[in-house]
């Protein structure tokens, strides 16, 4: 497994502002992902953070709203832009550990509340 840290752990933001969430892993990993978990809902994949190239976004998520950086194999950021109350969620980064069956581990999450 890997030790994953995220910051901030929580934040309360005003409508129209942006927040950048950081994810740090204690070892080099190929695959990093960003998920969103809206209140009472399950996890939804936002995008795959690719090192050295643009992130791969899932249907319903766009780069202008959720820009992602992945400057190296241990770090990634997700920005939630021009926030609205509908963006209030837990945001989780995860990493994929190489192996035959693709294990996936999660960071501690960021709880975002948009007023």
């Amino acid at each position, binding site marked *: 497994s890997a030790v994953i840290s995220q910051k901030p*752990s929580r934040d309360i933001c005003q409508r129209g502002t942006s927040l950048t969430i950081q994810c740090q892993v204690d070892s080099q990993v190929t695959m990093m992902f960003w998920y969103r978990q809206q209140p009472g809902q*399950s996890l939804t994949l936002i995008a*795959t953070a690719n090192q050295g190239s643009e992130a791969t976004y899932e249907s319903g998520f766009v780069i202008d709203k959720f820009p992602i950086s992945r400057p190296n194999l241990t770090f990634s950021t997700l920005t939630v832009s021009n926030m609205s109350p509908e963006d209030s969620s837990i945001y989780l980064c995860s990493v994929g550990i190489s192996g035959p*069956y*693709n*294990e*996936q581990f*999660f960071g501690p*999450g960021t709880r975002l509340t948009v007023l």
Partner: protein
Amino acid sequence: EDKVVQSPLSLVVHEGDTVTLNCSYEVTNFRSLLWYKQEKKAPTFLFMLTSSGIEKKSGRLSSILDKKELFSILNITATQTGDSAVYLCAVNMVAGTYKYIFGTGTRLKVLA
């Protein structure tokens, strides 16, 4: 459409009870099924299942997969208040990728 369905949605039991959580799936190219426990924010990994009929066990928790009937169960025996959490099931569909579809989870509350 690929989907993962968990049942029950919520469950309240007393300490010492045994619970069985269900996860059924309809996906193309099944690869593996994972169980996670989510207490506050981050899901913590419990089990990965890839083969039918082979029970995975960790303490009071155990899980098994039925690839013919397309479901998995997670059993918790002698439940404790610390078992209170949301239990998530996720299915990896496409070989070589890490993307999972998550179920909506089962919220378990264990009363003292």
